[in-house]
């Protein structure tokens, strides 16, 4: 590199312009892609959510959001409420565990699905499998505790923390459902 070349290329303005130009180009590209994909992404998100709702409460023909409770839905069949769908979250072994819980109008658990979790594969992620998940069906809030803590839920061996987290989240969801049914009466 010659001295002249040095002076020419290394003035602070030139360097700054160089970087700024690169950032502007990248900004334009991202902006354009966002402009064209944002609507499609939103639509896909909604479809995905509906799919999750359908998988958890079968046989319902309408899902209506519950006012004042973000993320909560009532599943109705005809004019009869068959279930409340409540999102729940609690701290697992490797981060938050997010669930969707379906609760009957008399506050019993129907089932849950795990929407998001980072639990250890082979240990904590067994919480999504029927051996563990099926235990929750028909339980009321009082019964929802891991057997180590004196409840009725058989914890997954080697994954007590995850079992506790899921149980606690489901219990919270039942409590939320209870407050909704109370409020409705």
């Amino acid at each position, binding site marked *: 590199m010659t001295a002249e070349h040095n002076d020419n290329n290394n003035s602070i303005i030139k*360097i700054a312009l*160089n*970087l700024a130009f690169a950032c502007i180009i990248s900004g334009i590209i991202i902006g354009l892609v*966002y402009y064209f994909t944002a609507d*499609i992404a939103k639509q*896909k998100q909604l479809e*995905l959510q509906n799919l999750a709702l359908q998988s958890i409460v079968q046989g319902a023909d309408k899902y209506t959001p519950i006012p004042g409770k973000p993320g909560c839905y009532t599943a109705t069949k005809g004019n009869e409420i068959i279930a409340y769908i409540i999102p729940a979250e609690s701290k697992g072994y490797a981060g938050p565990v997010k669930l969707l819980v379906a609760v009957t109008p008399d506050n019993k658990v129907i089932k849950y699905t795990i929407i998001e979790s980072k639990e250890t*594969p082979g240990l904590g992620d067994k919480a999504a499998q029927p051996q563990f998940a099926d235990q929750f069906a028909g339980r009321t809030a009082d019964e929802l505790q891991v057997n180590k803590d004196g409840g009725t839920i058989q914890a997954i061996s080697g994954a007590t923390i995850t079992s506790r987290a899921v149980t606690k989240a489901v219990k919270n969801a039942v409590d939320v459902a209870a407050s909704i049914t109370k409020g409705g009466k």
Partner: protein
Amino acid sequence: MKGYWDIFSKGLVLENPIFVLALSLCPALAVTTSVVNALTMGLTVTFVISMNNLIVSIVRNWVNPKVRVPIYITSIATIVTVAELLLQAFAPLLYKQLGIYLSLVVVFAIILARAEVFASKNRPFPSFIDGFGMGCGFTLAMLIVGVIRELFGNGTILGYTVLGSWYPPALIFIMAPGAFILIGYLVGAWNIWSARIEKAKGERGETI
């Protein structure tokens, strides 16, 4: 053609990103608890590193050397963000699975390293091949670690049970300490292997 093959294949064995260059070890430990995770991460990195090498090489004559690193990072971040937006719109399920890993790709040392070491000094096509080779080497290493960890730690591969119920899973393999131990042994094995390759090449009188 042979030149391109050499550029491609050095990423696989002799300069394998994980086992030899020892770059991006953190994700190799964190993500390889199952084969699916390891594979998706590997493919994502392969895509980003190839594209980034291509772009860095195309713009290499306009980038001021003093700000080259921020510009490379901007380029990586742009590619990742665009990929994220596209996945969100057209493959939301895949996007959900990749989740945090995708954003992590921005700070992968191996991608920046290849931009600096190779793409900034070479023409676009060889740079692309270099990135692709490095990506494949990374994927290969991730797969090796992932297969061993999932097989011994959970008795499954890709979720299918391989070792039956008679096998008590060695949980340490899917925990972080198991990953450290395993990678240590694999690096050792890799060194023995690549030393053999180099020796064989030396005996044939080829330069390495």
